[in-house]
């Protein structure tokens, strides 16, 4: 009888255990880092400049990404066209692209030797120069605009169809739509989207490594890497790691406090392929938004494919072995991430702030900081090389957790609110409640989350770079090594395999969720 009265209770208990695991894997290394740090007094003037630059670029990157996502998400929500599904999947590509590959693509379009610069030179205009803040912002918007769009679009899609019909019947114009739909929705979703992207940008490493650098454009993450790898100054790296954690944790807690309940409640689940009653002028706005965004996001991908296609078939065996290793690692990370996210979502139904804050540890304590901490912990006992792949899989799952939770937690809260009571009234067991009432309604965020986690893991070049020294490299690390040894043709081919792996995994998981 007890099981029937509280069908979510067993999962909630497991959720607290999952929270404990996340806390252990993030706070344990952090503790090790803190023990080795010798206070912020050891930070150099360059380190302080890196802190200021990190905050500036993260704020601008997040603001630009969310602002540009608003017209795009609105257009995708209210229009139905033949390639909408394909475009939505492709729109997800830049976020899940391995960062190093994405930056290569952006340089192919916007770089000094890129397509636009070639065009400008042909017209007698100066070539583009995107190194520094501009380049970092360009890359961060490219990488995070799709995430902002997906988060905002998720909000639009939760608006019950009945209310959109009511708006059409009442003749809502653009201002009324803003007042009664967009403003409440943005108040609910935009702070979370902004903070999530802010967090991602503060821990961005490869972008700053390639497009930033130097005293005026170094991020904290890059400064940690330099202190660790070039100076082997673990105390300074640890102090910078703590600064990074404070910045991100503050933003994470800020989001947890800002979180608002869903505005719209539940509807009758009647789907609308496109919004009714739209004025003709809105079509022009939407076509422009979709067209420009598609060009901005897809052109770098197209440039990469054009450059790497010829070399894929002649890649050395070591690249394919690395690809297989990345595939297995990505699937394990994805399954672990959705399991943890599902359990934590149940636990956070009761204690929302705790669930949010602990899950944000996964990103607040960056992979590089976790890697540094684990290096310090494990160095006396086990060779880091032996643990490279298991630790990478676990850390990748935890780093993906905030993104999986963003979509899953509100969906579970809504499903539990609308279906949970019905399930209890029907006397369904815990398993039946999940199988019949909850999981079918969570299929989309679960599929999306698993796809995201798998793709991020497949493209990760963080912990593995710190741990792996020998022949157990993942594909991104192998590609990095190829670039380092100036085998640029092989690197381009490997980049293409990496794109196919990341996008393929995302597409498969996301599609599985949609089909349910």
């Amino acid at each position, binding site marked *: 009888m007890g099981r029937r009265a509280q069908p979510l209770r067993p999962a909630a208990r497991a959720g607290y255990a999952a929270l404990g695991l996340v806390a252990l894997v993030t706070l344990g290394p952090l503790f090790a880092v803190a023990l080795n740090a010798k206070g912020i007094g050891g930070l150099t003037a360059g380190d302080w400049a890196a802190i200021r630059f990190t905050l500036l670029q993260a704020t601008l990157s997040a603001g630009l990404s969310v602002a540009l996502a608003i017209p795009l998400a609105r257009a995708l929500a209210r229009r139905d066209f033949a390639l909408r599904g394909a475009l939505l999947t492709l729109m997800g590509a830049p976020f899940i692209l391995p960062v190093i590959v994405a930056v290569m693509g952006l340089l192919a379009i916007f770089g000094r030797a890129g397509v636009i610069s070639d065009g400008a030179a042909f017209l007698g205009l100066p070539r583009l120069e995107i190194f520094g803040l501009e380049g970092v912002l360009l890359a961060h918007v490219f990488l995070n605009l799709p995430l902002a769009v997906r988060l905002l679009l998720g909000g639009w899609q939760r608006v*019950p169809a*009945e*209310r959109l*019909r*009511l*708006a*059409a*019947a*009442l*003749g*809502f*114009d653009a*201002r*009324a739509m803003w*007042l*009664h739909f967009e403003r*409440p929705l943005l108040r609910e979703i935009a702070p979370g989207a902004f903070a999530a992207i802010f967090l991602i940008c503060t821990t961005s490493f490869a972008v700053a490594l390639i497009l930033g650098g130097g005293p005026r454009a170094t991020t904290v993450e890059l400064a940690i890497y330099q202190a660790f790898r070039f100076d082997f100054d673990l105390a300074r790296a640890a102090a910078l790691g703590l600064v990074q954690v404070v910045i991100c944790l503050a933003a994470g807690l800020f989001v947890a406090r800002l979180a608002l309940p869903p*505005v*719209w*409640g539940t*509807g*009758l689940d009647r789907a609308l392929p496109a919004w*009714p*009653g739209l*004025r003709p002028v809105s079509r022009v706005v939407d076509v422009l938004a979709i067209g420009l965004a598609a060009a901005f996001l897809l052109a770098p991908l197209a440039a990469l494919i054009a450059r790497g296609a010829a070399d894929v078939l002649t890649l050395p065996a070591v690249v394919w072995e690395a690809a297989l290793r990345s595939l297995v690692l990505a699937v394990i990370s994805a399954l672990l991430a959705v399991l943890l996210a599902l359990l934590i979502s149940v636990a956070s139904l009761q204690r929302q702030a705790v669930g949010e804050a602990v899950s944000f540890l996964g990103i607040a304590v960056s992979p590089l900081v976790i890697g540094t901490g684990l290096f310090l912990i494990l160095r006396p006992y086990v060779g880091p090389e032996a643990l490279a792949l298991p630790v990478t899989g676990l850390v990748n799952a935890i780093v993906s957790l905030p993104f999986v939770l963003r979509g899953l937690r509100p969906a579970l809260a809504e499903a539990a609110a609308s279906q949970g009571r019905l399930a209890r009234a029907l006397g369904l067991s815990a398993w039946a409640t999940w199988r019949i009432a909850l999981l079918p309604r969570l299929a989309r965020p679960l599929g999306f989350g698993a796809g995201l986690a798998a793709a991020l893991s497949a493209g990760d070049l963080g912990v593995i770079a710190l741990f792996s020294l020998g022949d157990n490299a993942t594909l991104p690390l192998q590609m990095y090594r190829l670039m380092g040894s100036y085998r640029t043709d092989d690197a381009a081919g490997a980049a293409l395999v990496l794109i196919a792996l990341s996008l393929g995994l995302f597409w498969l998981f996301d599609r599985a969720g949609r089909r349910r």
Partner: protein
Amino acid sequence: MIELDGIERRQGDFQLSVSLSLAAGRRLALIGPSGAGKSTLLGVLTGFVQPDAGRVMIGGADVTQAEVADRPVSILFQDGNLFPHLSVAQNVGLGQRPDLRLNAADWAAVEESLAQVGLAGFGPRRPADLSGGQAARVALARVLLQGKPVLVMDEPFAALDPGLRVEMAGLVEALCTDRAITLILVAHELRGLDGLVTDLCLLAEGRVAAFGAADTLRTDPPPALLPWL
């Protein structure tokens, strides 16, 4: 006068083929089994569904191509008639100006509308604080404020208990009579709607199976209509 002239609409295997006309001030109940085409027909009338062929005439004007909001039709949905983040008064005020830039006279009209549906003083409340019957009345107050000559209701009383159904039906009848509003409502059953409805239309498989004055049809019902009476 509402005239649906040769309306055709195909949706997959389903084909709607309807022609009917209703005099101004009449109150028609559209009944029929699930999948008979009631909601599709309502969609054609309100503008949410474009017919493949035929014309929708209201008050002598062809509104077939008109936008939803530009038709002389107010709509009450089965659910979701109120915005949860707005007060009762603001929800009613949407009927006057969707951007809610209302002056003192407008707010007075809102309060008057609320009074007409028996909800004087409810303006500051939120929809979450209302019962199902009160929420339906608020939506009705907004319809009154819109002042359109045709009211379309999609199973508006489905969620109400029998007592409230009768009460709401009485209120709608009084308001329609008072303002000469032509009413078309979709109903799953006719219980509690006796005084409200002046005409009946039975739809079956996308076609009109029976149509006429309610009194006449009740006195001498065709066989297809018997289960509904």
